[in-house]
């Protein structure tokens, strides 16, 4: 069969450059021997631990860890009628060694089911990358290799860098609630005084920040950084989150019920807004259609329901400390809830088995090794 396997190297590379994820590149390399020879291992060789402050001989350093949120499915040829998926978040510690983190929280899975494959071959599956999460960590070079979370930040870290990593910008929310910026070559964080920030996102090549009233700006990186208004405030809830869905920027407004408990806030309602960039307002949307939103502790992303779990879209996975009953930290579902936009029903993930089984335990097809070949 002449044809695609005979595609000249430079044309194959043109195609490979348009693939955004590490896994797509791996898949491409595993198709046939000529493609394997032509495509370098990684077109964007960024390590998943990115040093922010150099160590310079000191015993610790500040690193940015990148985690990938992956949607795994069987190859199309193996799929039966029901769509079965697995949603995971992986952090690559050293090349080829990874650990699994709950997709919505920072809870690390330590106990795998008995037959779980020791070596996990990604090329057996369809792998879509739904998002990335960045976490700031202090790395102490103690023999035990423990990592403590930096106390400099709370909430999201957003990050942008050139393809070879020689220049980068990091935006995060400082403990004071202000926006903090760190650029390559800086010695410390720059605090941006103009706003108290609820959430951040890197969307369409720009950094967006929202305050608790819903007022949203684009942060243009420079000295000094410049904030431009993209949307006015909305009235209503207590916490704003930004998420990308179907190529658009959405804002989710979380309403907390603080009567129950002063310390732990319980989410009682969510409203979703879409950005009208021309009129510079957030417009409420009543129905997400086939989209599912995920509001994690350190990241937010979305998925298409029909490809994801076969159940209805128009719902939100969210994290809520209210769902952390004592002594149950080992539960994969701890801290996660589902909100249905259609009827306002909500509750812990364990009450929604169709939505829960995508997260844990791993589906049966992850274990079986009878899928031929690479």
């Amino acid at each position, binding site marked *: 069969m002449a044809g695609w396997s005979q595609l000249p190297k430079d044309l194959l590379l043109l195609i490979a450059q348009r693939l955004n994820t590490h896994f797509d590149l791996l898949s491409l390399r595993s198709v046939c*021997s000529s493609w394997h020879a032509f495509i370098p291992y990684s077109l964007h060789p960024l390590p998943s631990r990115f040093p922010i402050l150099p160590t310079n001989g000191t015993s610790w350093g500040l690193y940015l860890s990148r985690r990938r949120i992956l949607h795994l499915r069987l*190859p199309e040829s193996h799929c039966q009628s029901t769509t079965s998926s697995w949603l995971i978040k992986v952090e690559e510690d050293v090349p080829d060694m990874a650990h699994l983190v709950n997709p919505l929280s920072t809870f690390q899975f330590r106990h795998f089911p008995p037959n779980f494959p020791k070596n996990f071959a990604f090329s057996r599956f*369809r792998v879509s990358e739904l998002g990335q999460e960045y976490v700031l960590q202090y790395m102490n070079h103690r023999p035990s290799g423990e990592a403590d979370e930096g106390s400099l930040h709370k909430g999201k870290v957003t990050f942008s860098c050139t393809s070879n990593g020689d220049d980068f910008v990091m935006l995060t929310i400082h403990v004071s609630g202000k926006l903090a910026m760190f650029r390559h070559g800086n010695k410390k964080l720059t605090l941006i005084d103009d706003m108290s920030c609820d959430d951040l996102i890197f969307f369409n090549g720009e950094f967006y920040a929202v305050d608790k009233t819903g007022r949203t700006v684009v942060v243009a990186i420079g000295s000094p950084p410049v904030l431009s208004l993209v949307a006015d405030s909305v009235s209503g809830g207590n916490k704003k989150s930004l998420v990308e869905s179907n190529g658009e920027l959405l804002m989710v407004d979380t309403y907390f019920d603080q009567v129950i408990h002063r310390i732990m806030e319980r989410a009682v309602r969510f409203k979703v807004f879409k950005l009208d960039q021309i009129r510079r307002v957030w417009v409420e949307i009543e129905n997400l259609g086939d989209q599912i939103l995920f509001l994690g502790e350190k990241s937010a992303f979305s998925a298409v329901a029909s490809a994801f779990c076969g159940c209805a879209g128009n719902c939100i996975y969210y994290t809520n400390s209210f769902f952390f009953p004592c002594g149950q930290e080992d539960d994969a579902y701890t801290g996660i809830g589902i909100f249905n936009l259609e009827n306002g029903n909500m509750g812990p993930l364990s009450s929604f088995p169709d939505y829960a089984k995508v997260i844990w335990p791993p589906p049966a097809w992850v274990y079986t090794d009878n899928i031929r070949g*690479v």
Partner: protein
Amino acid sequence: MITLTSSDGQTFDVDEVVAVEMQTIKHMMEDGCAESGIPVPNVTGKILAKVLDFCKKHVETVKAEELKAWNADFIKVDQVTLYDLIMASNYLDCKKLLDLTCQTVADMIKGKSPEDIREIFNIENDFTPEEEEKIRKANQWAFE
């Protein structure tokens, strides 16, 4: 007007303004080789017709929205034709068509397993069992 002749002998009369969308043809015109027509030995009549369709539409149309919709329709072809279009747009050096075809292939690949990709593009798995094992090991992670 320029006359182009495909590998299987079909002739096409093309406006100069359309012909220059293909850099290869443009250079030949500038070098004065175009008087008695330009042979295009690497491209069949069927594919050349499609390429010329593309160039003509892109010269005539100004609105980006309209072009985007037209492109989406234009590129709905089987994988054999898609392959021929990539090769032709590369040979004729028509950047816009090359971009469109490469992006289309990339979109077909995203999120697919190697097995899926072979099915879509009708590619044979020509790895030896040893090579397959090596690749599987390269694609795997150990979870701690």
